[in-house]
């Protein structure tokens, strides 16, 4: 089984660990596959504008550098640790209420996708780029400082056909609603700080290449979750 984490932030958005260190941290811990998914925040409200102002978001003009750096580090990670690193982003549609907020990962993205597009437009563009679409922390979380992101869950009938998998576990939280609905699932750490290394992870029973991983998650066959503890 491949030990994987598909939800990792670095200092390119609001993470506290630089990209190179993040790669080393996961490589030293024996991970097989990780996805770097820094935030792309919507800039169409004051909340989003503030995040962009504070550089907690990738922008169209920084995306190229980000992707080049992730690819460079991916090459290093493969040579050094035999670890596959997949570039991605977390589309972050923040609003003042949890019912209107949504976060989702686009894993294996190639071109920049702005977060202030409509949901359909983003999903279709992501499909065009053959990126995985993962709904993040889709239900109520235990984080006190975090506005829950319930939009996708509340509108699941409309959007679930676009979503490849839902986070059934995120960091320390488990969302049993995902299993009740029998939706495809994965788990991720939502890594922002070193201590988040120890959290829920995915185990995939497939080959260590990006196509097999996408196929494994989409078919949701051979996927398990594990609470990674030291």
């Amino acid at each position, binding site marked *: 089984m491949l*030990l994987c984490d598909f939800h990792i932030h670095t200092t390119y958005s609001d993470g506290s660990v630089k990209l190179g260190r993040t790669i*080393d941290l996961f*490589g*030293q*811990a*024996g991970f097989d596959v990780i996805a770097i998914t820094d935030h792309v925040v919507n800039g169409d409200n004051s909340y989003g504008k503030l995040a962009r102002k504070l550089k907690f978001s990738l922008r169209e003009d920084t995306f190229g550098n980000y992707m080049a750096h992730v690819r460079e580090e991916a090459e290093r990670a493969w040579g050094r*640790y*035999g670890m596959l690193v997949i570039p991605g982003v977390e589309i972050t549609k923040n609003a003042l209420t949890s019912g209107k907020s949504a976060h989702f990962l686009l894993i294996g993205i190639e071109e920049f996708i702005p977060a202030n597009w409509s949901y359909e437009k983003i999903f279709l563009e992501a499909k065009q780029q053959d990126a995985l679409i993962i709904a993040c922390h889709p239900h109520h979380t235990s984080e006190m400082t975090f506005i829950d992101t319930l939009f996708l869950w509340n509108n699941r009938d409309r959007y679930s056909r676009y979503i490849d998998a839902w986070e059934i576990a995120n960091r320390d939280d488990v969302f049993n609603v995902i299993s009740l609905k029998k939706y495809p699932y994965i788990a991720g750490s939502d890594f922002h700080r*070193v*201590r988040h290394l120890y959290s829920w992870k995915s185990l995939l029973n497939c080959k260590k290449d990006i196509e097999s991983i996408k196929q494994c998650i989409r078919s949701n066959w051979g996927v398990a979750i594990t609470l*990674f*503890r*030291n």
Partner: protein
Amino acid sequence: MDFFWVLGAITFFGIMIYGLQIIVVRSTLLASRDSGGHATLSQLFPPISILKPLKGLEDNLFDNLESFCSQDYPEYEIVFSLQDGNDPAYKVAKKIKERFPDKNISIIVERCNRGLNPKVNNLFPAYRYSNYATFLISDSNVKVDKHYLRRIVPALDNPEVGLVCNLIRGAGGRSLGSIFENLHLNSFILGNICLLDRYFHLPCVVGKSMLMRKKDFEAIGGLGSVKDVLAEDHFIGEKIRERKQRVVISNYLVNNVNEYWGLQKFINRHVRWGKMRWKIGGIRYLAELAINPVFISSLPLFLYGLTREVLSLFIVACGVRVIGDFYLGRRIGAPLHPLSYLLSPIKDLLIGLIWFVPFINDTVIWRGNRYRIGKGTRLSLCQEGSEAWRYRLLDAIKARWV
């Protein structure tokens, strides 16, 4: 105010001892260059079994394990041993084995509960599996360069030498706990190891790296003799000396990598080490406080307030410590940020407080069981009895504080 002068005198005594430690470390490191020169001339490099007990993810575990696979040494094997295949270190060990297919690497997963010391339990299968007559016990948080084995093995050429261990250099430090840990290893621990070895002929065996012959080890009872001892490294050193063999502290510095320690981990380790030293050293443990000039010089601040003399004493002690630690750090090539050394006095204040803990608590918790540390750090299961309320109260206070 008379007591102030007593504390002042103790502070200056501590500073003098600290100065002596710096001199001894410096001369020990200079001597290392000589012995290194001889070592490379030695033609006798027996095959070595490196035993690596693994438990959990140490900081930079991949690099640490990899460094042992790149040794410039004729013949050696590495035996990684784990108690559980679900241990996260297992995956790292497997990756290392795959990365070095031409090296003689074995991974042993076997649960062993023969004793109360978890590291020794982990070593039983590795020791049994190892092939060579000379073996090295090496912790998983140790990183070395490729000359390590060539530098330390020649010391065993002399049949009078029964055990070779190493000086430690704290490396890494990206969190407060790990900076404190590395500062402490590079000053207090390093200085005292060199001082005790040079002037008191008391070699302090630190289990990070221990090289022995199997016949000598078995003559002192082997792993069975240390299975219920917390400070198994010290115990092995003592037994070797009782056999009239020498314990050599090689001046080759091994890196003890501490990258992301939390403050709690630092406190826990030094509480445990403090308890061990109290049980081993007895009355000598009291001297440790006297050689902590920062802590001693801080006491008048509470007793007499902020007077000019009191403040001057404290500032001098802190200044000496910062400069001394900086010098030592540079001398041993410790990869610490220069500003980290400003934290030395704070670390010493914390260590001063930790020093008192062994007097009120002599137990450790392992796998949910509490063990009492007895004479020579021998462990015994702590029964629920009349004193159990005391431990529960301490646990509750600790949990609430955390």
